[in-house]
């Protein structure tokens, strides 16, 4: 979280924290571990009332941020989601809403934005694909033009909150091999959602099959080709910025629990916090948390500013936090001993969320390779 927050931002973050601790305490998360939806529509509508869905949309389109920097504001919510391992389509719904606001026609915006902003309709970004197109950026779903309409064929997985989604933002390849995106209502003929197993206790994913799904040309979002690629990149950056802040939130909460534990747990007549072997490791963990904040905040600022280093920073953040959030949380588990690997203890909720975030929207390896390509590209443009 940024060091300097406005009073409004602090209030906004505190309101979100209070709402999340009230509505989804960890006991509730455990109770709903097998619930196919993972969250109630009411929960999401109330979150929308708090502002969770409107931060990336301009006021003239019916949205509004807290500080004038909507991406940064959204990371405050994401941080709290990480701290609470909260349910709900925070990432995917915001990506879809922002995409409609960014690239939608006046008709698309008028039809969709009010409901998306109100949390009445939920959007899910159908982007990632199963093997063999499971590397970051690979898209195999075909959109074939036929009689002024498009026919979609392919598979998307994992799609976040797909089972609860009213609307899919589908990223596809057109006849020219360029990227093209569609807004497809969940009930469209030929769209089938298969629930997936997932590591997270609260978040749900679906495998979405598109089998000869015919959509009108008016379902196309934005322009295909290079403009479509730029839209997809922006969507990816937003998803990653949310992920990064959420990972920092999981670390923050994990360290909080572990701090309590170290000071209050005694062995051999001393608190664990008095052992140098543990103190040194804990100092490192605290250092990585601070580095995590720094990387996530820097990425959020670059995405906020749509800077030409935004892609570099989100990938660097993923490469860094994808490792350190997990390592720090596993250290928290180690410090707790056996209780740390029981379902009864809360730690695993945060570890699960961090692992989820480390793998979705590009793995660590994907983002490292992407960084190298970015560096090479910069060399070429400099030279």
């Amino acid at each position, binding site marked *: 979280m940024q060091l300097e927050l406005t009073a409004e931002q602090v209030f906004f973050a505190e309101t979100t924290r209070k709402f999340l601790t009230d509505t989804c305490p960890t006991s509730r998360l455990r109770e709903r571990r097998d619930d196919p939806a993972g969250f109630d529509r009411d929960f999401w509508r109330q979150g929308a009332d708090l502002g969770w869905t409107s931060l990336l949309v301009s006021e003239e389109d019916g949205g509004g941020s807290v500080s004038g920097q909507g991406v940064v504001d959204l990371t405050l919510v994401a941080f709290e989601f990480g701290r609470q391992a909260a349910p709900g389509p925070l990432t995917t719904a915001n990506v879809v809403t922002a995409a409609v606001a960014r690239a939608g026609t006046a008709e698309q915006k008028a039809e969709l934005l009010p409901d998306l902003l109100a949390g009445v309709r939920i959007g899910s970004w159908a982007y990632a694909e199963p093997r063999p197109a499971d590397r970051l950026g690979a898209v195999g779903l075909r959109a074939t033009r036929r009689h002024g309409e498009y026919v979609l064929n392919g598979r998307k997985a994992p799609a976040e909150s797909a089972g609860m989604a009213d609307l899919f933002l589908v990223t596809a390849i057109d006849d020219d091999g360029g990227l093209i995106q569609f807004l497809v209502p969940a009930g469209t003929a030929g769209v089938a959602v298969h629930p997936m197993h997932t590591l997270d206790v609260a978040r749900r994913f679906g495998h979405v099959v598109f089998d000869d799904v015919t959509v009108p040309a008016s379902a196309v979002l934005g322009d295909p080709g290079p403009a479509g690629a730029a839209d997809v990149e922006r969507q990816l950056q937003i998803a990653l910025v949310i992920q990064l802040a959420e990972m920092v939130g999981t670390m923050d909460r994990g360290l909080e629990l572990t701090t309590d534990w170290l000071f209050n747990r005694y062995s051999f007549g001393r608190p664990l916090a008095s052992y140098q072997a543990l103190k040194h490791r804990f100092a490192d963990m605290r*250092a990585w948390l601070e580095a995590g904040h720094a990387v996530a905040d820097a990425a959020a600022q670059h995405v906020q500013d749509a800077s030409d280093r935004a892609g570099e920073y989100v990938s660097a953040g993923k490469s860094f936090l994808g490792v350190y959030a997990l390592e720090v949380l596993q250290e928290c588990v180690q410090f707790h001993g056996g209780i740390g690997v029981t379902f009864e203890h809360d730690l695993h909720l945060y570890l699960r969320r961090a692992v989820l975030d480390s793998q979705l929207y590009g793995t660590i390896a994907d983002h490292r390779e992407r*960084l190298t390509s970015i560096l090479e590209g910069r060399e070429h443009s400099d030279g």
Partner: protein
Amino acid sequence: MADPDVEDLDSFRHRLRGWLKDNMPPADPRLVSNGNSSDEEELAEIARNRKLQRLLFDGGFAGIIFPKEYGGAGLTPAHQEVLNEEIVGYQYPSRIQVPTFSPCAAVINDFGTDEQKRTHLPAIFKGEEIWMQFLSEPGGGSDVAGAQTGAVRDGDEWVLNGSKIWTTGAWWSDWGLCLARTNWDVPKHRGLSVFMLRIHQPGIEVNRIEMLNGSREFCQEFMTDVRLPDSDRIGEVDAGWTVGTRWMYHEKSLGISYHFIRPAGSMRGVNPRAPAPLTVARQAGRLDDPAGRQLVGEAHALKLAGQEASARIGHAIGAKRFNDQAAGLSRIITGVINAQLATINLKLAGVSAVAWDDADEGLGELGVEFLMRQTRQISGGTIEMSRNGVSEKFLGMPREARRDNDVAFRDVPRSASSR
């Protein structure tokens, strides 16, 4: 909130930009030392640095945040930040920044008398005095307050005996800031005093130490009956740890300090001499290999993380959100990340890091750099000291038991070699 007596940043930037263009020579990659220069080259380089420092002084851009009355520019950290940005692309006296400006000049500025400051600070800003830290001792490691170099009072003078080690470039430097024991009959932190010491004088023998990478920059000094006037003492007699605490703070804060020039984009706290992994991967032919590409990306992410973390922690300390001990967080992060970067370069260099032809010399150096990897977690106080500081004084965890408090220093157990 702007202080009307302080030049605003835009005006400063404009004035500085014009001055740099007219006065400062452009950066020259050939001047970056690879650590293998001859003594003659090294001395020429130091002389060149002194001239660059003098140029900055004559332009009014030396010692940006130091007071005007002592030859500084009397400006703010924000002005130093501007200078750090604007000086990119120009030569600057890189060899006189640390430890001359910080910790040494910073400590003199914090604790020196008016006369001491008038004598030394302008000379530093003009490039006439290069300072080193006479701090570590062969018997002490990171326990600097356990100094055994002794100073005994003789009228208006002090007589110094003992040995200091790990002074960078003492053989070409002018002055040392020296921590010495002036009282052996009180607990260790209460019997220290700090002196300013002219390095090249009778009774001081400077030996150079060869490091694993061939560098002979580090020195050890042997002091035998060195006499110095009481007027060269900084701070009160036996109250040297008051000075020392601040001194240590400056040293730990180098990654976030505004006392000296650190061109923007040079990674805060990240080894500027480490070759870019992208360059290494290309030279080693590893850019077609996904494993190689992942290493390059990993290294870049680590560098950015180190840079952003140091900036954040520096701001948090500056804004008093964190106490000074949080500087140790930055030290831990950059110490670990630098070690990781050295390891990544070794992996990228592959077999050429251990056996190389003349054409592969750059890759061979990476093997040697790997041998030196831990220096980033040793020099300036080991990373374990930072871990102690962070856990005990930032996170408030219980302190370690120790055997050197509340006993006369002469009765404290010490290393066999220095008993």
